[in-house]
């Protein structure tokens, strides 16, 4: 099993969710995060004082999938989240040692 972490632009969340559902990925965890890469922050000015805001709001999507569909998962997320502008985000893949569905006690692939 693999944990696929995708950091995407917030307004792309729905597109990614729909695409993953079509693919057959049945669950995900989403968090609101901040970050930057090459897309630097911006400056806000309040009463003449400048505030450098380095971080840009993003959404982090985490899905755990079977090894067999990792490749398609990455591709799906990529196609749905891409805009071509700086700040589109990144995708990381980690190994998952074990998994369990809490309600039933099913483990590993049964849990996904």
């Amino acid at each position: 099993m693999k944990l696929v972490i995708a950091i995407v632009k917030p307004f792309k969340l729905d597109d990614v969710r729909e695409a993953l559902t079509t693919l057959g990925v049945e669950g995900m965890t989403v968090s609101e995060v901040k970050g930057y890469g090459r897309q630097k922050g911006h400056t806000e000015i309040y009463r003449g004082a400048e505030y450098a805001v380095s971080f840009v709001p993003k959404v982090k999507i985490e899905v755990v999938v079977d090894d067999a569909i990792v490749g398609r998962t990455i591709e799906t997320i990529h196609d749905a989240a891409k805009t071509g502008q700086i700040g589109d985000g990144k995708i990381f893949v980690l190994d998952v040692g074990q998994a369990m569905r809490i309600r039933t006690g099913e483990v590993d692939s049964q849990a996904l």
Partner: protein
Amino acid sequence: MANALKDALGDVGVAFRTDVSELKLLGETMPVLKFSHAFHLLFVFLFILVPSPALAEEAVLNGANTAWILTATALVLFMTLPGLCLFYAGLVRAENVLSVLMQGFSIACLMSILWVVCAYSIAFGDGGAANQWYGGFGKTLLSGMGLNAMSGDIPESLFMMFQMTFAIITPVLIIGAFVERIKFSAVLLFSGLWLLLVYAPVTHWIWGGGWLADLGVMDFAGGLVVHATAGITALVLAVMLGPRKGFPDDVRPPHNPGITMAGAAMLWVGWFGFNAGSALAADANAAMAMTATHIAAATASLTWMAIEWIKYGKPSLVGMVTGMVAGLATITPASGFVGPIGALAIGFSAGVVCSWALSFIKQVVKIDDSLDVFAVHGAGGMLGIMLTAVFAVPKLGGLGLAEGVTMLDQLWVQFAGVIAVVGWTLILSIVIALFVKAIVGLRVPDQDEADGLDVTTHGERGYSLGGR
């Protein structure tokens, strides 16, 4: 006659306690009234007053004026609770939002008590031989103020209440200087002493028949009494307290500009009570004061907006409402003396001068008067005091200066008022701050400041997002 009156009133539902056998027009007995209907006939009754034994002549209560000043009192209290509190709260970090609200609320409560206990007396009493300087303690705990005591043609208790709302908002203004780092006990101790030693005497000098009133200083609703005193004290405390950690390069921006605008809107509306109410009458003077107030607010807001647009390319909400406050502070002393043209000019000047003052204090002098109390209220109030002399002249649309007084004469008088008030406020604020520093200390520990005062001083969290 007394019995006929009693019968007539009885016909419309006004009942008397049976142990009051007759209506004593000149005595101490106050009938207990029970109104069942015909409330408008209350005015008839009110014209037959029992004068307070302290007054020589019979003062007649004016119902219209009383009704308006009752309303104005509520409006001015609304400016503090919650107007100014929200205005300031939105400008600080989220971890300090409650501390600002708490400081405002608690000062309002404390000043109310102190006003009734002795500050009203100091401000508006008769100081006898020392009446040039302060009003004495003759009205301590409002002694001698019976139910029907009058101040002009409104009840004295109402005048006292109306003035109380001014005494409340002025120390709350100062909060802006010391947010995010001051000790709560210091806030209470300082504000209480400041009311007694700075606000009340200055009020007496200008509105209570003191020496500045005799000199002819024109301050319609508090350019000196409220804004200049608050502004100077803010500067003193900002210096003595020291800046916020990270000032000037690393402070965090306003956490909720939306709430700041909500507070600002309440201030604008409430300011009609502040300025138009200072006419102490429901008359043309009040209406003109309201007009001038409104025009100045709108003009100053647009001016500040334009300045930001030109300077930074982006007109901001925080900037615009700051301009509004600057305009309102500046028109405050002039509101009852100038016309619409004066208001336009004063509003515009406020936008220009106060925005410059803000940059000057924060970026050149680098004093962390965190929410710019001096730039907006101090500079605005003093500017307004000087412009009052200019725009009060009929040629510029004003309502006229005193008999035989030229604009230049009045400018000198106004300037004298500024020097006197600034000087007194400066010295006393320093003394009080040193005293408070010695007794309870001024500043919270660095870690408390970093964690935020809400949790560390007040044990509360302003926002429980995420359910915890």
